[in-house]
Structure formats: structure tokens, C-alpha cells
């Protein structure tokens, strides 16, 4: 019995010894420095993309932008998502990737400020930090550059206009967002609220904003809640692909969409938002969703990959050209906009495949 107890104590010590030996052998086997240092001669630049969460097709599309250009740029690309969609679990990924020898960290931040310290530590070790899609608003000094989908200030008003047009500029509507602190979501919602002051929208009323946390189940529950809480609801706006897909399913099941089986004698509930064409093809074909908008997320991946591969230290006013993509200008606070919003509907959705 006593032996077993000592054994239990001894094992971790043995492990540490084994660890020490392992280190010696691996150090001789692989020469590159642990982290940060720019790629040595002939060594590929290691670029890692850290999305907000796993299994989000939107970020898969961003990753495709990296993948399509990785070969021609000669970078070693890899995606590593956090286990849960919050900032604290992204911290761990950042630390792991710096240790794993990443030269460039491209991150879609889950919080505008909780990552500051970890990103600073990465930068101290020579790692270039680029944010994509979701920036560190108010904390821009903690990253080197940001690649954003499109001019954020125009998304809120553009989404509102699209919804307003489909609901004939009158009636109650609600918003189904991602998490309560997603910086871009909140910026867009603010943009919508500001645009609402325009007399064009005087007959429209925003009744509630709910948060589905970018989880399908929670989003569905929230969407169902909206339908029961607001009997006079005429429209739902979900500026997130997970939320829009979940809400479309809920609307389809309830039959309350315009022309749906339960929408007899009333105009039905219109739904729009932001999503990728592939996710919405069925809903558009069935008439549950008439139109929605998006940019191509892959563009951001392509631009970030280019910046990373060239180890570009950009400053406001710089311009650069990516072959086949066009010319880009670095704006204030090192922000680069990838493109503009596209509206997808029955007429054009089949032309896109992402």
C-alpha cells in the first residue's frame, strides 16, 4: 500500500524527467526558433487563422480565401478555432499558436478588449497580428492591421433599407443578433437605430433585439420566442448567418412567411439579414426569404494572407495591389475594407457558390 502511494508521487517526477529527455532530442531534430522570428531562408511564413467559433460556415469561407492563395504566396496556412465562442478560449489558442511557431496570427476577435494582453505578448515575440471581420474597436493599437468586410457604417442602414422595402416601410420588426458583445453586430444595430430616425421609416417600429449567441439551437428558441411574444410582428432582421438560417427554419415550420400556409389573410412575416448564398438557397427557393445581403468573406482571407505573406507593415494612406483582386487602400487605424455588400435574391443566387 505504501509502495503504491509513493509510486503515485513518483510518476509525475518520472514524467518530468522524460519530458527533459524529450526536449533534448527534439531540439536537435528541429532547428527553427519557437516563435515569432521572421521565416528563415527557405522557411515558409506560418500563418494561422483563429475564427470566433468552430463549425461556422462563414469562417470556413474566410479560410477558403487563405487556402486559395496560400500556394501562390508560399505560406504555411492553418485554421485553429477556439473550443467555445468566447474571448477566454481564444486566449489559449493565441498562446498555443505563438508557441507553435506562428509568424502571423489572423484573428476574428470575440471581444474588443479581453484579448489585448495576449495579443501584446504575441507582438512582443515578433508575431504580426491582423484582425479580420471583427476588429478590436477602441483598442486598435493591439493589432497591426484589420481587414474588414466592408464599410461597417453602411451595413446597418443597407440592411434596414432591404428589410423596409420588403415590408413596404411599415409595421413592427425585431432583430436577432449573435452575442451581446459582438462588436460588429452592435455597430450594425447602432447604425440601424440611427437610420430609423429617417422619416422614410416612420411607420416602422423596432420591438425587440434578441441574442442567439451564434448557436443554432439558441437562435431557434429566440426566434420562436419572437413569434409568440409579438403577434403583430411583420419582419425579422438577423445580421448573422447562424441566426438567419435558424430563423428561416422556424418561419418555415410556423408557416407564417409571406404566402405561407398560416399567413392567410395577413401579409406574413418577412425575414432578411446577412448570410452566405449556399446557406439560403433552399429558403429563397421556398419563398421563406425573399432577399438578403453579404460580401464575399473569402476576400478578407485573401487580403490577410497577402499582408501576412509579405510581412507588410502598413500605415494609413498606403496602397497595394493584389493580382486578380484589385487595388486596396489602407484607411484610418490601418483598416482595409475588402469590398461592398451584394444583395442576393431569386434572380442571382444561383450564380454564387459559397
Amino acid at each position, binding site marked *: 500500500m505504501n509502495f503504491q502511494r509513493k509510486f503515485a508521487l513518483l510518476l509525475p517526477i518520472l514524467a518530468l524527467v522524460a519530458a527533459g529527455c524529450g526536449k533534448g532530442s527534439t531540439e536537435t531534430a528541429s532547428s527553427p526558433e519557437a516563435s515569432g522570428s521572421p521565416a528563415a531562408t527557405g522557411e515558409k511564413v506560418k500563418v494561422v487563422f483563429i475564427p470566433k467559433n*468552430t463549425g461556422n460556415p462563414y469562417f470556413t469561407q474566410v479560410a477558403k480565401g487563405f487556402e486559395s492563395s496560400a500556394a501562390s504566396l508560399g505560406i504555411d496556412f492553418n485554421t485553429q478555432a*477556439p*473550443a467555445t465562442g468566447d474571448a477566454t478560449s481564444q486566449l*489559449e489558442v493565441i498562446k498555443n499558436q505563438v*508557441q507553435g511557431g506562428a509568424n502571423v496570427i489572423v484573428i476574428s476577435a470575440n471581444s474588443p478588449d479581453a484579448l489585448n494582453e495576449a495579443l501584446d505578448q504575441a507582438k512582443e515575440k515578433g508575431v504580426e497580428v491582423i484582425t479580420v471581420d471583427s476588429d478590436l474597436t477602441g483598442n486598435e493599437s493591439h493589432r497591426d492591421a484589420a481587414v474588414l468586410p466592408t464599410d461597417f457604417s453602411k451595413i446597418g442602414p443597407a440592411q434596414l433599407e432591404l428589410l423596409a422595402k420588403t415590408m413596404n416601410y411599415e409595421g413592427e420588426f425585431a432583430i436577432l443578433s449573435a*452575442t451581446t*458583445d459582438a462588436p460588429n453586430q452592435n455597430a450594425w444595430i447602432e447604425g440601424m437605430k440611427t437610420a430609423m430616425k429617417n422619416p422614410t421609416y416612420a411607420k416602422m417600429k423596432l420591438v425587440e433585439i434578441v441574442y442567439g449567441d451564434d448557436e443554432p439551437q439558441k437562435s431557434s428558441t429566440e426566434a420562436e420566442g419572437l413569434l409568440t411574444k409579438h403577434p403583430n410582428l411583420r419582419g425579422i432582421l438577423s445580421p448573422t448567418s447562424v441566426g438567419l438560417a435558424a430563423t428561416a427554419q422556424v418561419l418555415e415550420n410556423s408557416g407564417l412567411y409571406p404566402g405561407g400556409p398560416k399567413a392567410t389573410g395577413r401579409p406574413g412575416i418577412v425575414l432578411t439579414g446577412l448570410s452566405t448564398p449556399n446557406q439560403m438557397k433552399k429558403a429563397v427557393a421556398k419563398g421563406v426569404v425573399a432577399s438578403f445581403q453579404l460580401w464575399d468573406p473569402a476576400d478578407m482571407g485573401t487580403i490577410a494572407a497577402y499582408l501576412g505573406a509579405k510581412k507588410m507593415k502598413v500605415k494609413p494612406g498606403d496602397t497595394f495591389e493584389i493580382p486578380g483582386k484589385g487595388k486596396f487602400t489602407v484607411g484610418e487605424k490601418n483598416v482595409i475594407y475588402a469590398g461592398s455588400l451584394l444583395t442576393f435574391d431569386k434572380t442571382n443566387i444561383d450564380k454564387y457558390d459559397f
Partner: protein
Amino acid sequence: MKDRPIVPAVLLVIGTILASRLSPHFLDIHYLLDTSTLYAETGLMALAMTFVIISGNIDLSVGSNLVLTACLSAKLLAAGWGIPSVVVAACLMGTCFGAINGWLVAKLKLPSFLVTLGTMAIYRGIAQAMLGPASVKLPKAFTGLDQLLWFKIPVPFLIFLFATLVTGLILHRTVFGRWVFSIGTSERASTYSGLPVDRTKIIVFALSGLMCGIGALLIDSRLGVARHDLARGIELDVITVVVVGGAAITGGKGSTLGTVLALFLVMLVRTAMGVANVKAEYQLTVIGGLLILAVLAGNLGQLFNRRSAARR
């Protein structure tokens, strides 16, 4: 002393060897120590959770307590309180939130699972109501404790080691520790033997709260901001660590050494897979598998012990 944490110890050795094969970047002592700062809060809370689980209870509110205390502490610092008084206040607040759980469990005879399921929602809810989507920045003087080294060891890790020593001695070398085991083995027998069952339970939950308070200070210092949505799901990590460490969820069994080894094991597995670019969803699967394996091994061990005892 029948419960030797053989299982986590063996897994730790196997894990270390596998990890060093998985990525050449993994076995770097500076890196491992740096990573330990990410697990200091989990570790502290797991030390106290060991008491809670051995006593036959569970505390699901630890993550919410940590977040609420972290937000309140940040607010106090922002309001101009000095660092020493905020440190004391955080410990008191955490202890108090924990003691509320203990009181509800001991005096009102409510199941700890339900009580702490409730306070889990309440504590995080208060934090969210207080801050909304905003975050509170902490003063520069308060941040960066995780980067502070003492003999090359990060301070949060030292705090964890110190807490291990103290809680280990309390659990395994004091009368109070025996009471905790006794209540977890049979509450009725403990009551009839005249043990202060209610008081012990309240103290156990208060201890859990105290660790949340210390953890709150650590996470505030590490992140430099306090928000309502930090450390989401950390309570499940904490419980996983304690159970992998050999504690019986039904009470009466467990050890500080087992919890510490299990913490290192979980940290090692997660870190190694992270460095080796194993996808997050596979990481979750491995951790889940580890939990089942540990419980299974514990039960098999018990079965084996019973048989060999019968043979004797």
C-alpha cells in the same frame, strides 16, 4: 488513505510522452509555466471543489461567482479603491457568495445541484445587468500578475501551489477534513455522531467561494478587463478536473493530490493538442473521453479492491 490517485498519475505520464511526440514545440518549460497562468483560476476552484464533491455536494456557481466578483472588483478599482482593499473585498465577496450557497444547502436542506444551478444564473445575471455589453478596464498597476515571475515561476502558479499545500493539509491532516469525508460518506451517521454537519457544509461552500474570489483577482489582472461573459463554462472544467482526479461524485472519496494531477493532465492534454493544431472539436472529444476513462478506472479499481479484500 485508500484513494491513491494512480489513474491520473499514469495518464499524466502517458500524456507527457505522447505530447512531446505530437509537437516539437510542446516541451518548453517557460511555455508550460506561462500556460499554467491560464489554468490558475480553474486550479484554485478545483482545490475547493474537491472539498465540495467529497462532502457529497456540487457547486455549479463557481464560474458565475468568479465573474461577478471579477466585475465588482474592477468596479471598485475604477471607483478609486486601493489595491489592498480591493484584494480583501474580492476575497470577502467571493466567500460571501459561496456561503450563501452553503447556507441554502445546509439550513434549508435544498439539493446543492439545484441551489448552485440557480445561483449560477443569478450571479452571472447580476454581472450582466450591472455591466451590460460594456467592459471595465483595470488600472495598469493591477494588471500583468501572470507575467510577474518569482524564481522564474509565474506568480499565479505559485499562488496555486501555496493553496494546494494549505487545502491539502486541511483536507487530509485536520479534524475538519475528516468531517468533510464523513459527511460525504454518510450524512446521517455524521449527524448522529454529533458532527457539526451544517457548519461544515457552509464552510465548504464558503471555501469554494473564497477560491472564486482569488480567481477573480487573477483573471482581472491577467486580462486587464472585466466583462460579464468571461470564463464561460469554466465550472464544467473545474468539475471535470476533480472527477478525473479520482473524487467520487457521490461523495466520501477524493484527494487534493488527485485533483492537482488531474489539473496538470487536463492542461497538458489541451495545450499539447492546441500546439499540435488538433481541432477544437477533437480536443473536446478527448477531454470527454478522459473523464469517462477516469470514472471507469476508478470504478474498476474499487471492484478490484473489494475482490482482493474478500479473498484476504
